[in-house]
């Protein structure tokens, strides 16, 4: 009973300083302060500033001139804008092929044979490499006259195809380069997803006689929904942000046929011949609005999960 006796005297008399009473309420704000400050300054505020800038004509050097909707009016009468928009749509649609392709590779690799870990990492490789390097690799791959791809086509059909010189093919060529790392990314997501597939359900389905594709469709895919969701999200974002490859591989060419919005925006605002900041901002705003559709969807789902989850 000695212990209990000590206890009363040993417990310090409650000190209710102001800080002590409020620390639970104040602590989160103190911890949030640096992150929020930087994020507001560098991310949130610039978004609004871009909106505002998009109503001006400004070359980045001189005075800003109020244009109202002028930039937008011009944009909607700009062939290059429509080319970029169309290419963005192409990117969006074709880039999504990364999702099934990633799934296919993931399924192919989801085995337990000797050395499979190494194979998985090597398959994942393209994602770790910078897009700049990927772009250079594919430029080399596509290079007219001696590129591996050119040679391959030449060997198959007799005449090589210079993908990056062909206005019809160039976007597809760049997207293919972009797919390479993106497939790797989706593959990893699916590999982890497959890892978490409930073995019980698979076994139950085996007892139920589901096999192969039917197993995949009816039992596995529904369980992979979270992985699929995130794969789609990152792929869509990747497609809309695509800039590096276009810049590296073609600089938007030939004659602007591989431009996408993000590249066109940069070209207009900061490149050698550009410096139309307001016009660039207007393009960025359009891009932002397109992305907003997806962001809202994502947030909506998160809010829902958050409600259910916690």
């Amino acid at each position: 009973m000695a212990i209990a006796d000590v206890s009363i005297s040993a417990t310090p008399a409650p000190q209710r300083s102001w800080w002590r009473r409020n620390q639970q309420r104040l602590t989160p704000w103190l911890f949030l302060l640096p992150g929020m400050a930087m994020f507001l300054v560098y991310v949130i505020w610039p978004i609004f500033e871009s909106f505002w800038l998009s109503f001006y004509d400004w070359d980045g050097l001189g005075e800003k001139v109020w244009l109202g909707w002028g930039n937008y009016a011009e944009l909607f009468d700009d062939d290059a804008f429509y080319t970029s928009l169309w290419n963005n749509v192409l990117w969006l649609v074709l880039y999504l092929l990364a999702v099934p392709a990633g799934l296919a590779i993931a399924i192919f690799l989801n085995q337990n044979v000797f050395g499979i870990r190494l194979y998985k990492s090597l398959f994942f490789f393209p994602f770790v490499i910078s897009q700049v390097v990927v772009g250079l690799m594919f430029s080399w791959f596509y290079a007219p006259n001696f590129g591996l791809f050119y040679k391959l086509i030449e060997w198959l059909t007799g005449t090589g195809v210079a993908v990056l010189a062909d206005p019809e093919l160039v976007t597809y060529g760049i997207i293919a380069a972009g797919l390479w790392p993106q497939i790797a990314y989706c593959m990893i997501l699916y590999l982890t997803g497959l890892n978490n597939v409930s073995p019980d359900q698979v076994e139950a389905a085996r007892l139920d006689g589901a096999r192969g594709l039917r197993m995949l469709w009816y039992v596995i895919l529904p369980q992979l929904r979270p992985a699929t969701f995130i794969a789609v999200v990152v792929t869509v974002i990747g497609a809309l942000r695509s800039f590096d490859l276009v810049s590296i591989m073609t600089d938007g060419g030939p004659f602007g046929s591989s431009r996408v919005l993000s590249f066109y925006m940069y070209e207009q605002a900061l490149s050698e011949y550009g410096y139309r900041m307001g016009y660039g901002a207007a393009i960025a705003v359009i891009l932002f609005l397109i992305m907003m559709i997806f962001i809202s969807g994502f947030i909506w789902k998160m809010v829902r999960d958050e409600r259910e989850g916690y």
Partner: protein
Amino acid sequence: QQRTLKYYADFDPAPLAAFEAVIADFEAANPDIDVVLQNFDHEGYKTAIRNFLTADAPDLANWYAGNRMAPFVNSGQFQDVSDVWEEHNLHESLASAAPSMTIDGKQWGVPYTYYQWGIYYNKSVYEQVGVDVPETWDEFVSNCEKFKAAGIDCLTTGTKALWPGAGIFDYLNLRTNGYEFHMALTSGEVAWTDDRVKATFAEWGKLVEPGYITANHAALDWQDAASLLIQGKAANYVMGNFAVAVFKDGGMTDDTLGFMPFPTINPDVARAEEAPTDTVHIPAGAKNVDDAKKFLAFLATADVQTKLNEALGQLPINKDSSVADDPFIKAGFELLSTTPGGIAQFFDRDAPAEMAKIGMEGFQQFMVQPGQIDNILERLEKARQRIYK
């Protein structure tokens, strides 16, 4: 006390070496000045300059003469260096370039080199196919037919960076419509849908439609196209004289590499040439203006220009400089000093940047899709109306 001069430039490796030598000389002459040269990739520099002029200005910066420097002059990014011109009597020694350095009656930089454009050709290929060096456009085109039959690209180019295509256009237009018209066009005074412009493209079409121009040029850099000429896969190349270094690096010699002026199209038009001038400027934000001016003056001297251009393989501006003993340089000097029609800078220096960009894209597209000519010209016209307003 040691002072530094920050100098941003965009030299390729060979000119870089030449310039480093010049800088060494300058430093030797001015032991208290330390020149820090920051070299950029040639293409990247064109983007970078916009950024560093406003943000992180050096004391000296390379750029180009003519309309190309206009935006920076107009927005006050380059300093007026008329005093240097006055003090060192550059109006006389650099007279030939003075007009292209002058805006609003003031001078905004110092030119140190220029070089001719024209057609470089592979002599062995000409021999192999058995054709003569053409004088007129018709001869040129008919040669092309023979080259094509031999599986050789008659005219090569690499338009990945767009500007090589502009060289072809400039010459076609100069030969078809003449210098005055060309300058009017690039300064936005003539509609792109003008019949005379169409005439120029019609001449061009004579090469494009039969496929005399290297296919896939849109994916090639100009150096790639140069290799084609070196390897004998192509016969002619419309290029500036700076390309000679590349041809020679690739193994060509004075015996195999030939140079000819662009052939005559319309004999009624006076021969005009294209010779871009490279310049050095003092940005408005420069911190060490005095020494920068010293450097400009130094760069303008006859000796320096002689030495520099000997290494560059190009032509000095200073009339007292001597021209190197090199057949191509001599040919260029000959060509330019006898030009009756006038000397253009280059499409992307004569036209404002935005127009240049759209125009060069149009040229590239024309060489890929000649059928789109009407669309292209309409687009250019629309751009012209917007840009020059």
